[in-house]
């Protein structure tokens, strides 16, 4: 009986502390999601609250080439960014882990600074760097006697690579620091034992470092993938002409933005596109979790 009372009291206290967050979540997340879902089944546009049209918007979204092109762009960017950012960040973390502690702090700070730069500022900075006629990159190529007329910001084939470069510059250091923190938490006696057993560096990496870093790697991969799938601000500011470099830089979120904030302002349609995007991101995240095993206990 006493135990029961104590548990009830604890539940009430927990509820009391959780209430502010839950109330805000219901108002700003659940309600908004719900409204979005309702809107997606209507032809709402501009001031018109819309009439129920069933799944017409979803059918239209899924049959729109432009949407699938945006999906392809987003995926290309996601794979590109993850393929560059995660291995390099992992390498950086390992290098940082081996250097003198005094210098480590300086490098850590240097790697972290790009994360603090606002994406809009970052986009402006890179726009200046990659400008065709007066940008530093073309100037540098010119100095080296190489072709210096590349229109970096308006070449469809360069749009995604450019996004990967810019976002990698911003996020790689952040990932490296996360990996470094995890590397430092690995028990050094494991490495010492491996050394005594004569394990090669590759074997140490594969059989000690990787397994011990699994949860960190999974976390970085899942959060990176979600971040990549939600990319918008960088695209919008780096390629400022509404043309998204011949459409090759239009991401899923940019597609939704265009539909919402075009002259027609098709909110119903954009909501449907938002929900499709949500399910895509959810599916990718679940797949990653399934294959990488995040959230499962070590015993499992």
């Amino acid at each position, binding site marked *: 009986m006493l135990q029961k009372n104590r548990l009830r009291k604890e539940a009430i206290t927990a509820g009391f502390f959780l209430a502010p967050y839950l109330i805000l979540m219901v108002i700003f997340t659940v309600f908004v999601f719900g409204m979005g879902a309702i809107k997606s089944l209507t032809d709402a*546009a*501009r*001031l*018109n*609250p819309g009439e129920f049209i069933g799944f017409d918007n979803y059918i239209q979204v899924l049959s729109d080439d432009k949407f699938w092109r945006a999906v392809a762009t987003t995926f290309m960017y996601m794979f590109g960014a993850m393929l560059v950012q995660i291995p390099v960040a992992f390498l950086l973390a390992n290098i940082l882990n081996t250097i003198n502690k005094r210098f480590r702090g300086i490098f850590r700070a240097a790697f972290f600074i790009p994360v603090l730069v606002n994406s809009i500022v970052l986009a402006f900075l890179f726009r200046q760097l990659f*400008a*065709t*006629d*007066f940008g530093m990159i073309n*100037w540098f190529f*010119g*100095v080296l006697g190489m072709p*210096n*007329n590349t*229109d970096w910001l*308006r*070449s*469809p*084939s360069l749009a995604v690579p450019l996004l990967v470069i810019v976002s990698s510059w911003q996020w790689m250091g952040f990932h490296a620091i996360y990996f470094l923190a995890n590397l430092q938490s690995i028990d050094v006696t494991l490495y010492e034992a491996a050394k005594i057993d004569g394990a090669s560096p590759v074997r140490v990496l594969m059989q000690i470092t990787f397994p011990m870093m699994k949860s960190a790697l999974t976390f970085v991969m899942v959060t990176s993938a979600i971040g990549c799938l939600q990319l918008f601000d960088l695209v919008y500011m780096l390629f400022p*002409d*509404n*043309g*998204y*470099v*011949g*459409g090759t830089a239009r991401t899923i979120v940019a597609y939704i933005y*265009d539909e919402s*904030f*075009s*002259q*027609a*302002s098709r909110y119903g349609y954009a909501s449907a596109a938002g929900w499709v995007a949500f399910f895509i991101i959810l599916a990718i995240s679940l797949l990653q979790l399934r294959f990488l095993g995040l959230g499962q206990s070590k015993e499992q």
Partner: protein
Amino acid sequence: MKNRILLLVFAVVSFSMLLGACGDSATPDGGGKTITMWTFAQNNADEWTARKADIEKKLNITLNIQLVAQDAFVEKLQGAMMTGKDVPDMIEWMIENNRILASNPKDCFVYPLDEFVKDSATFKKVVPGRVAWVTYGGHVYGLPHDVHPVVLIYNDTLWKEVGVDVATIKTWDEFFEASKKLTAKKENGKPVHYALPYSNNGLQTTMFMIWQQSGAQILDASGKPTFTDPQFKAFAKKWAEWVNTGAFTEWDWGKFGAMLKNGALASYTSPDWWVSQVTEAANEGTYKFKVRDLPVVSAGGSTSASWGGSFLAIPKAHKDPASIYKIMEYMQYDKSAITARYETSGMLAPMSEIWDNDVFKQPDARFGGQKLGELQVSQARAMPEVVSGDIFWDAINDFTEFYQTYYAGEITLDEALQKTQAAATKRLK
């Protein structure tokens, strides 16, 4: 006799008072109400704030000017209109990508002003070329604030150094041919001077201005896209030729003034709101700058264009649009105020009846004493009309997308135009 004189004096005084009252009737009486106006641009807000006391006194209102962020303007207005709370009495909003005007008044955020403008002697004096930008499906939705006539500003020193007198150039073909001399001098494999700014981004900036001169429309009178029509095709092909001359450098908003100052940019097409970019370079005195009308696209074509602008309109939620219209018309077109506007901001109002004022005939030291105002007025008079419509701004974005694909060499210009036409037609559906 004395009584008769007194009666006569009384009659004269009464008649004078009556005349005075009649004169004042042109100025509406707001009855002491508070009129809330939203505007999106700081310089416009500054202009209204400067005139606030005068407007309030003349119209017997309290003017509440609210500066609303451009990015949030439409959403905020939509929210206010849907909830019916804090809806402004009038709005000042931008012409480009406005997202609130539509051919069908039902789809519009603001009242059509047709019934008010048809009887308005004042409105009849507004330049038709500007009214066209706020006319959708035959409905006039706003009172244009400005004309934004475009002129060609050029660095006379640099052009003359390569033997070109820009003042004598008649067509854009001649201009781009001459620009080859200007861009011939190179450093690190790149021209030291460029003839014009443009970022290869479709119907934007310079292309947007020169396109208007061509007379080619992107929508027909019924609002259908016309990107594949021979006239637009011919212009697009001509534009591609001009781009290939290498005359253009990027339109860099942040470095524009600096590029004029260091001579990297030798000329630019400028609406009145962008003329000030040359001020520092002209005042520095290294180069002499001049100004002229635009060379024509083809013989007999227009020498003028416009770019940008805003308008006043009445949100639909308002219960008495007729009285707001009167207030709005006075605010937008009060002669003395809009004449003074040119002196303070350099922006020309769209009322032709004020254009003969001496204010517009003053020599401009930046251009060696040339009369910029006079030129802008003649440009305003020659302004070509553009057919606007529901999909106009979205179609321009479609064109930008496919133009970039063409520019990258992935499709031909014809394909780009066909794809734009298809995308714009899909929007119409």
